[in-house]
């Protein structure tokens, strides 16, 4: 399936010179970045800078006009790509949770492994219950999304994504719609995940969190990566004036 055999010492996600437009509006103007297995990277930047679009391209929710995105050596933009196979490897959590409102928390977690991976029900249920426990929602298994708080829903969404055993997790501003009090519980969950060695790509506005959790930070503005580096260098000695301006407004 893949053109070249992928080995874990190569980037698990490799983005090269990606261009993406919506009609006349060019959102990504040549973005490149590599993510190694087990790495946690944060993409930050002002609204409309293309961060969300970029991570949506990684699991082919958005297509790209030119450039290359590879996940485990497999070209995401290849015409004959089996998108479903790609998405089994890449989990995604959204700003608006997007839980299925007609299913309970546990069913939300169990559905995809049952329907998509066709795994046996008892095994899936065991794993789903363990995941619900992992995101600290024991006792909420049979609640419907409407009965859960935003933070709880978001943690179910994380468990739902993990149930597919993905190799990479994408987080698209997952705390942006939450109350300040519930932001923390979601961040703790992500932190646990990162500590276990999950490859995570986060788009976030939580600078403190990014600094604490990320191995590498990318700053995007107007469709390009302006600056990137490890958190310490990035936050303490940013070189580009745009980065500095952004950081001065945020911090």
């Amino acid at each position, binding site marked *: 399936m893949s053109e070249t055999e992928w080995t874990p010492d190569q980037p698990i996600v490799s983005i090269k010179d990606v261009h993406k437009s*919506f009609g006349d509006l060019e959102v990504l103007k040549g973005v490149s970045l590599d993510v190694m297995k087990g790495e946690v990277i944060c993409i930050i930047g002002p609204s409309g800078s293309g961060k969300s679009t970029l991570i949506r391209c990684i*699991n082919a*929710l958005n297509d790209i006009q030119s450039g290359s995105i590879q996940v485990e050596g497999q070209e995401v933009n290849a015409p004959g790509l089996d998108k479903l196979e790609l998405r089994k490897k890449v989990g*995604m959590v*959204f700003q608006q949770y997007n839980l*299925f409102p007609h299913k309970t928390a546990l069913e939300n977690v169990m*559905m995809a492994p049952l329907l998509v991976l066709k795994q046996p029900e008892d095994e899936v249920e065991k794993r789903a219950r363990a995941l619900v426990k992992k995101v600290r929602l024991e006792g909420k298994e049979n609640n419907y999304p409407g009965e859960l708080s935003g933070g709880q829903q978001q943690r179910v969404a994380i468990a*739902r994504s993990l149930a597919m055993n993905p190799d990479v997790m994408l987080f698209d501003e997952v705390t942006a719609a939450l109350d300040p009090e519930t932001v923390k519980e979601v961040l703790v969950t992500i932190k646990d995940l990162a500590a276990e060695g999950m490859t995570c790509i986060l788009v976030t506005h939580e600078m403190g969190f990014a600094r604490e959790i990320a191995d590498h930070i990318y700053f995007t503005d107007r469709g390009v990566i302006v600056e990137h580096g490890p958190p310490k260098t990035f936050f303490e000695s940013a070189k580009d004036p745009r980065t500095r301006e952004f950081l001065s407004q945020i911090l």
Partner: protein
Amino acid sequence: MAMLKPIPGISSASATDMAVLKPVTVATPGSASDINFSRFVSDLPWWTLPALAAIFMMWPIAAYAQSTFTMADATSALIRWLPFLVFQGFVFNILISVTTMALGTIAGVVLGLMQVSPNRMIAQPAWLITQTFRNSPWLVLLFIVMLAFPFKIEIGSLTIQIPDWIKAVIGLSLPIMANISEVVRGAIASVPSGQWEAAESLAYSRQQTLWRIILPQCFKRMIPPWMNWYAILTMATPLVSLLGVEEIVTLSQQAMAAENSRPELLVPFYGFCLVIFFAYCYPIARWTIALERKYTVKL
């Protein structure tokens, strides 16, 4: 994707068809615009029915004051014919409406699902068929089916006669099909795009997303507009009297002819038709509005 279509039940027109730019919050579906009929009928007070009945029965006295034909005469004529009108006429209207609705719903759901197909070769014809039948006069459709369809089909030595009422059902089910198709499309479109994306990113196929995630969510939203269309259809069944199908209006005409076609009978007899349709549709309309309210609150 070239065409921006308004979504029934959603007050603001969609500004874009680009998935990412669609608004996350969606107005409650099935609101005012598409169930106007049920809303109007259910808002009428309960005494509308006896009031209508009284007006129609007293009409001859007022209109034909000089006539020797009294209200008692009109009443007794109507009572004489009442079992015939109800059990041979109105019951047949119900039968036509139920059969038409069943046929129209099956075809309409298929057509509605075709409309949301990502394959343009399927979606575009489905859209065209929907718009054509939705915007054609019902009576014209009825005539076309009535006159264009063979009255019997021969399969080898077997000859199947197609009764007129079956043709009427087919004719009426065309606009119903088109409108149900729009109900289905509108309900599917009213599910936030985030639901599609979440399912997609969990590697659900399109079919799985549609049947397991999207349709279960919009099933309830389709019920009120579906019932609204049923009530409208029931009201439209007397159209088939023009084609000679023996439903309540045809039988009323026959009954009046048997009563020497006295002009004093026109209003009581047709008034009775109106009353019985109202009596049938009023509870349906009340129920529709109640369900609509219930599902709206839940969203």
